[in-house]
């Protein structure tokens, strides 16, 4: 590799972590940070135990519980579900046995792994970051290379602090211009997935670039990188800039003082060089983005909120027609029906996509002074204990509670149906989470992905709603 050849952000971080290249071209990649949770780690620790292998870098590892736990007060008196309890207890036993640093349930810092990594400064620009969870792509918003791995790879990292990797292809999604009123980072990423499809990023790492992305705060950047995996890309990245450095400064695990300045010097060299080559490029005009909502059972099945349910018979090939018919049936829809006519039963504001303080504020701005519609269950689940504390200091909890929303404890909650927060069969949910797969939020549940403001709007009107109408005082 020539030192003068222009490189991408991805290439630079990859090169900086290359331990060696194996004869067949596979890279042995060094991993700076390994985040561990209860669902994808038990079999990895078991593997270490059987082979009598220790964890190589305890200071590079952090464990937390998030997927299985209840998000109401019951969590402090023990987990009801015996299997969930075993999984949490197993993690606690494993971190004790292997001396892995751990943030327990009772700690104010506990929360969703992809919220607390950045919040604690465990995730930093320029790092390689992995976790046994596909939404690890979130941390790429800091200008890091972050991706999800399976349990065998979790064990590989615990034992060796490295991974065997093939270099991915470079893809760039450029969004230029000012984001229209009522639109958020979530609408950008849903529009991108709608454009390139759920396999559009397979084999690639996506760098999000352009003036619209640069203008986003870190919460928005996390939402975008979080859903890169929904476009098939294992990692999403955004070049570190002043917004990033201001976010990182002072966080508990971030470098402090002179070390911070030294780090910023290095981080500042990371953005993609002028003229670096991308294997794939996509351009979006921010002015064309409108508030988005998913209607089907794949994150690529998104539409502007002003649209109607598509007609499966209008699709060009039979396989796609069959797929669309299945979606329309599963989602309980009628072709041609306006999306704004769809009544919701549940509203979920939370998940590693949208549970940061900025998301809480955006939802509260819509909820303030209004009431959750009759018959709708609306829940707000902050991403961490610290997000919850800050929201309460700002009085957001009171706004939500007065409007009839449930104000809950931090965790993955209704994003994935493996803790008590689940949809019942047939229930329709406006959700700020990331996946609308069949049964994702509970068997038979129907998910409509959208931004926090859109979800809050659905809560107060009782149906999918164009948030711009709320802002104009139409509801």
């Amino acid at each position, binding site marked *: 590799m020539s030192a003068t050849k222009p490189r991408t952000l991805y290439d630079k971080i990859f090169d900086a972590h290359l*331990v*060696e290249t194996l004869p*067949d071209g596979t890279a*042995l990649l*060094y991993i700076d940070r390994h985040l561990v949770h209860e*669902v994808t780690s*038990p*079999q990895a620790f*078991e*593997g270490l135990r059987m*082979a009598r*292998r220790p964890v*190589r870098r305890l*200071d590079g590892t952090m464990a937390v519980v998030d*997927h299985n736990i209840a998000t109401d007060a019951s969590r402090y008196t023990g987990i009801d*579900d015996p*299997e969930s309890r*075993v*999984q949490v207890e*197993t993690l606690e036993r494993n971190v004790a046995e292997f001396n892995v640093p751990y943030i327990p349930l009772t700690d104010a810092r506990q929360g969703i792994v992809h919220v607390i990594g950045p919040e604690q400064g465990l995730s*930093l620009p*320029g790092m390689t970051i992995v976790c*046994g969870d*596909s939404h*690890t792509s979130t941390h790429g918003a800091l200008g890091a290379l972050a991706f*999800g*791995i*399976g*349990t*065998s*790879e979790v*064990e*590989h990292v615990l*034992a*060796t*602090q*490295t991974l065997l990797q*093939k270099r991915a292809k470079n893809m760039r999604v450029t969004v230029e211009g000012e984001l229209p009123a009522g639109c958020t980072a979530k609408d950008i990423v849903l529009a991108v997935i709608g454009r390139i499809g*759920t*396999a559009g990023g*397979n084999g690639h790492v996506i760098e999000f670039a352009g003036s619209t992305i640069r203008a986003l705060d870190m919460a928005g950047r996390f939402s975008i990188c979080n859903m890169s*995996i929904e476009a*098939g890309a*294992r990692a999403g990245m955004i070049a570190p800039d002043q917004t990033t450095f201001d976010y990182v400064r002072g966080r508990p695990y*971030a*470098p402090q003082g002179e*070390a*911070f300045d030294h780090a910023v010097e*290095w981080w500042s060299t990371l953005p993609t060089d002028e003229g670096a080559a991308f294997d794939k490029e996509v351009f979006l005009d921010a002015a064309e983005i409108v508030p988005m909502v998913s209607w089907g059972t*794949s994150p690529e099945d998104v539409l502007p909120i002003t649209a109607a349910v598509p007609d499966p018979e209008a699709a060009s090939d039979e*396989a796609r027609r069959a797929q669309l018919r299945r979606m329309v049936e599963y989602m309980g829809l009628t072709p041609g029906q306006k999306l704004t006519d769809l009544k919701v039963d549940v509203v979920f504001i939370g998940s590693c996509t949208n549970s940061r303080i900025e998301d809480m504020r955006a939802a509260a701005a819509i909820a303030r002074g209004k009431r959750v519609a009759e018959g709708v269950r609306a829940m707000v689940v902050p991403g961490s204990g610290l997000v919850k504390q800050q929201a309460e200091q700002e009085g957001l909890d009171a706004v939500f509670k007065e409007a009839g929303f449930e104000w809950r404890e931090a965790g993955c909650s209704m994003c*994935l*149906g*493996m803790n008590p927060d689940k949809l019942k069969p047939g229930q329709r949910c406006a959700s700020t989470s990331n*996946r609308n*797969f*069949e*049964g*994702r939020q509970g*068997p038979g549940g129907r998910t409509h992905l959208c931004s926090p403001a859109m979800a809050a709007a659905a809560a107060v009107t009782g149906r999918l709603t164009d948030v711009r109408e709320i802002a104009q005082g139409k509801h």
Partner: protein
Amino acid sequence: MDAFTKLTGIAAPLPMANVDTDKIIPARFLKTIARTGLGKSLFANLRYNEDGSENPDFVLNQEPYRRAEVLIAHENFGCGSSREHAPWALLDFGIRCVIAPDFADIFHNNSFKNGILPVRLPRAVCDQLMEDARMGENARITIDLERQVVVRPNGEEIPFEIDPLRRHLLLNGLDDIGQTMQRAPVIDGFEAKQRAAQPWLYR
């Protein structure tokens, strides 16, 4: 991990694109701390009715596909979450090979780590193999990793591409952690260099 050399068995057709890992194994079944026993939950939402009875329309509830060792599907198989429970559930059911036009990256990786061979073949070929598979008992398909060919019931051989390192590990049933551990001195060297340049990464 069991080695994968050559497999002859019944193939189940699953003509669906974007088969996500929540479909392969819903999250409520991820609460195990073992790698085994997940076969009964494979495709649970498609395979069982709400009352827990079998859905007779789903392919894996039909003869001879209850004994399928190969699964043939459409594009982007295994998209979604990183759960290795997806290949564990396939394996526990008895599936050792999935054939599809393409796979989501994490699932693709996870399969190799568990002795499951994902084979990429063009959509038209997958459709042809699916037609073969619909002949049931009379349509045994062979996947020969050594020779890198899929053999149709009529004897026609279809070559496929595979990464040489992954082929080697799979043919020999090798655990890559042991191999990487042998590189410990190189990893030590990397750490020493990184610690000098970026001390804040070490505590």
